[in-house]
């Protein structure tokens, strides 16, 4: 029977109903937004306690930041001193202005923390090992981009906190040999933080860095799919299943490079064999009982993760105001002048030695991070087999956290070591 509305609907939504397996598959591979997912996932891919969904949460925080950021752009002008006035307007005169600004600020802090936790999780589950080494490198670059976005955004309120944090931060950067001063000049568009710096930081923050981050995120997700999907605890496979494990060796030696479950090289198109006419060719690969459809299992889990992320950011934003200090005053340095919290560890190092602490040690740390997948010879992902790797990385994490805690809580005026429980009576 001819039903024009139904025709219109079906010309847009071409899949079969979701009650059918074919429909569930088509929801994924016919949909441009969802087709990065496999149509079916292994059950272990869904384990919360394995990945804690940190990658998803980081991505969702990024989405929150983009939407709230665009909203804020309607009211913010990157010229000092209008920038500060616009921050005040957002707080006092714009409907939901302070809520959206708070969401943006807290989501930013959250994203820095979650991207770091995600990196730790990937390390601890050994998910960077062959063939996923380069995706780890992309991940570290994404981490640095996250710090860059947070840093460029930090200047935009143009208050004392922003101005001096960026002054300190760009000065730390200028210690890099050969290129340090030049990079500082390019960032600031001048010799000191001023109008030119605010405009450049604004362009970096709203256009350049988000674009680069989006592109690299696309590569990052793509590679996760191509490398075999989300991380799962391979070593917990049952004993009989482990007999089906296959050792992948290098072509001309027998040295094992990786131990993976028995499957052929996994290329995607992992579908159910169904009747009817598919849109394109599919090949079925996996055991039935190990996999479930992405819809609804994976999607509802992701949905819950998204909702929890959004709810947390909203709740924090309703109750806690993002700080705004007095208007930036180049003539008056607060004492102490501190970099943003994620750079405080760096500032602590710099306070001991500019070249060693500010350039060499952090530079080596980043290089070491990038090189991890290439210098780690152990093919096993099981924690019991990687004790020293885990200890080394944990030490790295603890040192970072301690440095940041010291920089935040234990450094007072003049960068003197003052425990937070000692109250200093300052000048009036």
């Amino acid at each position: 029977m001819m039903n024009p509305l139904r025709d219109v609907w079906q010309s847009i939504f071409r899949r079969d109903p979701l009650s059918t397996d074919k429909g569930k598959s088509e929801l994924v591979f016919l949909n441009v937004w969802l087709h990065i997912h496999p149509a079916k996932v292994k059950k272990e891919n869904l384990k919360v306690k394995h990945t804690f969904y940190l990658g998803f949460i980081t991505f969702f925080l990024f989405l929150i930041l983009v939407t709230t950021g665009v909203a804020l752009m309607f009211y913010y002008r990157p010229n000092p001193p209008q920038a500060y006035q616009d921050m005040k307007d957002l707080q006092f005169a714009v409907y939901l202005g302070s809520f959206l600004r708070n969401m943006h600020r807290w989501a930013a802090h959250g994203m820095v923390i979650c991207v770091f936790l995600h990196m730790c999780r990937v390390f601890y589950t050994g998910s960077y090992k062959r063939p996923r080494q380069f995706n780890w490198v992309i991940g570290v670059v994404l981490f640095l981009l996250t710090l860059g976005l947070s840093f460029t955004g930090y200047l935009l309120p143009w208050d004392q906190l922003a101005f001096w944090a960026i002054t300190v931060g760009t000065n730390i950067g200028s210690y890099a040999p050969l290129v340090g001063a030049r990079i500082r000049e390019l960032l600031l568009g001048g010799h000191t933080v001023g109008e030119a710096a605010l405009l450049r930081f604004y362009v970096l923050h709203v256009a350049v860095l988000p674009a680069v981050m989006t592109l690299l995120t696309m590569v990052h997700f793509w590679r996760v799919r191509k490398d075999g999907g989300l991380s799962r605890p391979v070593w917990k496979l049952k004993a009989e299943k482990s007999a089906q494990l296959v050792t992948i060796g290098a072509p001309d030696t027998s040295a094992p490079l990786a131990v993976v479950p028995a499957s052929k090289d996994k290329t995607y198109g992992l579908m159910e064999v169904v009747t009817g006419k598919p849109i394109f060719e599919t090949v079925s690969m996996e055991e039935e009982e190990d996999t479930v459809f992405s819809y609804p299992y994976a999607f509802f889990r992701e949905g819950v993760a998204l909702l929890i992320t959004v709810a947390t950011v909203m709740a924090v934003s309703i109750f806690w105001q993002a700080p705004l200090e007095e208007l930036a005053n180049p003539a008056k340095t607060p004492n102490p002048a501190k970099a943003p919290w994620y750079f405080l560890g760096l500032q602590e190092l710099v306070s001991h030695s500019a070249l060693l602490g500010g350039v060499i040690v952090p530079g080596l740390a980043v290089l070491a991070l990038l090189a991890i997948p290439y210098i780690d010879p152990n093919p096993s992902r099981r924690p019991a087999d990687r004790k020293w790797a885990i200890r080394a990385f944990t030490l790295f994490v603890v040192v970072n956290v301690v440095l940041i805690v010291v920089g935040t809580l234990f450094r007072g005026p003049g960068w003197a070591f003052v425990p937070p429980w000692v109250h200093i009576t300052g000048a009036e």
Partner: protein
Amino acid sequence: MERRLPQFFFAFSLIVLALMLGAIWQAGTPAWKTYQQEFHRLEAAGEPNAAAKSGVLNADLVIRQDLLPGLQRVDRCTTCHLGVEDPTMKNAPQPFAFHPNLAPHVPARFGCTVCHGGQGLATDNQNAHGRVAFWQEPLLPKQYIRASCGRCHKEGEVPGVPELTDGRRLFETQGCRGCHKLNGVGGTIGPDLTEEGAIRRAPAWLERHFLDPNAVSRNSPMPNFHFTKEQARALTFYMLSLTSEQMATYYSSVRLIPSAGYGRELFIEKNCIACHNVGGVGAKSGPDLLGVTKNHSAGWLDEQLVNPELVYPGSIMPAYDLETNARKAIIAFMASATAEDAQSILAGRARPLTAQDAAIEAGKQSFARFGCVGCHGLQLQGGVPNPNSQGGEVPSLLHASDDYTKEEVIKIIRNGKVPPLDNPAKPAAPLYMPSWKGLLADEDINRIADYLWSLQKKKEGW
């Protein structure tokens, strides 16, 4: 997990919805809306009929702001303070009370914060009144609000605020410039006060400081001038007015209020009584000025002051370089001047000065104006403590001629002098003679030396 998953999804969707509604409720119920509704009820009570009442009660609730580009401010105080221009709200409770004596400083032109302090951009009580961290200009306490008049009216008299004139006079005569720079002139021992009113808006601190500097600023080299409470208050007013803001022409054109009191000061300063008389009292070379404003228009009188020869060709009256409001002030004085005024002016006049006397008088004025009295004393007695200097205090200048020639004294004034230390191991003495060569013209320095020499006490004979 599987079975509970849809429940989780539903639960968190509800939580997100609830939080969204919560944020909307938070944004939609700011305190200012409540205040506006209350004000509308007050207004409605005064309306004569039901239609007018309902019109007022249903008026929109909006943020009201005064855009003040010339003052570089935006004030939203009238969002809650809705009755400031409404005389029927004379007895209304705050924040709705009527603001008496507002004209010509209407909010549309002046806002509120330029006089009262506070954070104009804010729309809630705590933030708007500036009683929050990171806002440096909280509301001024009631008794100090009139000090803000001096932010625009920087010269002459401000009617109703004698403290400003007193404070300015005390500053110039008590020698503050000896240690403090103001508008580029002064010493460097203490902080520059050009922007003191902008930096430090804490009137209580300022007043305590004037009464006893060391009580609020430890180890301050500033001596205790033993000011009275009124003097400390006057100086505090003056300090609060030192904001050196850049204001658009409209505001800076009223630096000087053309008051009759200031007109009298100018009349004395320009020595009008040397040629004119008022009701017969005074000199006879120029006309009697009694009632001159009744016989001539303000425009005519103004022209007379600008260019006397144009009005009376061949007139010997000099063309004084007076700004518009200064001329208005003189004319205002003329409107009320009587023979008694002329008499008191004549009585206060010093005797005619010889050239030598004039030089000494000028030197005396400079000595006071540039702050020398601050350390050396009004009677040149010295005595201000200067720890670890030889003698332990600022020297008296009454015996300067015993130890120095006049040329040597002139050299010390030009180049400055650090006092020799009593004990070189201890820290340097806090007070020193600054170098005045860039700040004082050579003529001024010579006249100061003349003044000093006119007061020298001869050494007692052996």
